[in-house]
């Protein structure tokens, strides 16, 4: 191990960045801008896509700086990241398409008029 230089400054910078992203998410979540909320792109609103992208940015920040992936060897980083970015979007895409299908098949049979 030996002596390492201190990364304290970088840590606080990353904390500032993660807080900023969270604050942006919360503000958007509270005001829900009309032009973003009432839209539909690829199955959900643009607002939701913004939330998802910001979340992935936050997750990458945590993994890269807090979990020190930036200090690991490239093949080790790939062995962790590649399974995640292949398997998770694959599973999610299939399940959400299937969920939409099940909804379209079942919803017409639910009675709302009494």
């Amino acid at each position, binding site marked *: 191990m030996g002596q390492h230089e201190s*990364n304290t400054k970088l840590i606080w910078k990353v904390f500032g960045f993660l807080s900023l992203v969270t604050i942006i998410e*919360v503000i958007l979540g509270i005001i829900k801008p009309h032009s973003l909320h009432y839209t539909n792109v690829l199955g959900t609103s643009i607002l939701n896509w913004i939330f998802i992208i910001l979340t992935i940015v936050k997750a990458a920040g945590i993994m890269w700086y*807090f*979990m020190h992936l930036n200090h690991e060897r490239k093949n080790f980083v790939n062995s962790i990241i590649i399974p995640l970015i292949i398997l998770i979007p694959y*599973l999610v895409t299939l399940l*959400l398409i299937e*969920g939409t299908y*099940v909804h379209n098949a079942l919803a017409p049979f639910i009675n709302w008029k*009494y």
Partner: protein
Amino acid sequence: MSTTTADQNTNIWEGGATKPLGASYGKMMMWFFILSDALTFAGFLAAYGFTRYKFIDIWPIADEVFTHFPFLHSPEGFPMYYVALMTFILIFSSVTMVLAVDAGHQMKKNKVILYMFLTIIGGFVFVGSQAWEWKNFINGEFGAVQLQDGKIIQFVNKEGKQIALEDFATPDNAQIEHTRENGLWFEKGETTYAYTTTGIIEAFKHNPNVGIRLEKINPETKQKIVVLNKAEALKLLEKSTRVVRGANLEVNEYGSSQFADFFFFITGFHGFHVCSGIVLNIIIFINVLLGTYERRGHYEMVEKVGLYWHFVDLVWVFVFTFFYLV
């Protein structure tokens, strides 16, 4: 040749002599555990996504469910604020953890002790906040009735704002809940509520300012459909079979029972991870106090539990997005 074998044997817990991935055995295995755990959580959240799309037109709106904030009261509620606070608590405890790891690299024992201690405190505060959130969710706020076919009907005033049962109905249930105090032999009874469906329907008939709200979402406004027409509302209400207050695994006043099931399961599983993270942190904290890593010459164990702790934060970032924002 024999020296090579001996060398490999002494290095076996460090990943062997060659270290193809450049990481120690323990750290590598922690990472692969995290990888598998991340896939587990991804599976849960994907299942949540499936169910939400399946019931996309009746799913509860998170902003109307999680509206509490400690010591503050308002009819509008405070959606987002509390969960944002919880997110900050967890991110902050992640920061103190990474500061502990950083101090460990420089062999500053006292700083490691301080930051590990703050991390453990942050973990306890987070679990406590989670418990408070659960308490509010379980107790409920407004109350609702459930129809024969399982639909949940909520009550609103003339403006379409949700109101509680006590705002218009009178408690008229004579039945007392079976508890340890009032029974000769304690057997767990069904939860009883102060209100009955017949009492609620009567009150609804006589109060002109009360309307109902369906679970169904109007796709244009993305709000729940409000029915202020008395005759139309009564047709639905006459099918009601029971009063619902709060949430449990079987039924909840906010709508689809699957919503509460997923909420309890996923946030519960995450809370369980936080708890085990606290336990691991305490074990390592004690070892730091005893000087174990000072003698070992490096603080890599702090780094390993740090990885786990950051992972818990990482999962929360996704839970926060998919339960509260999206």
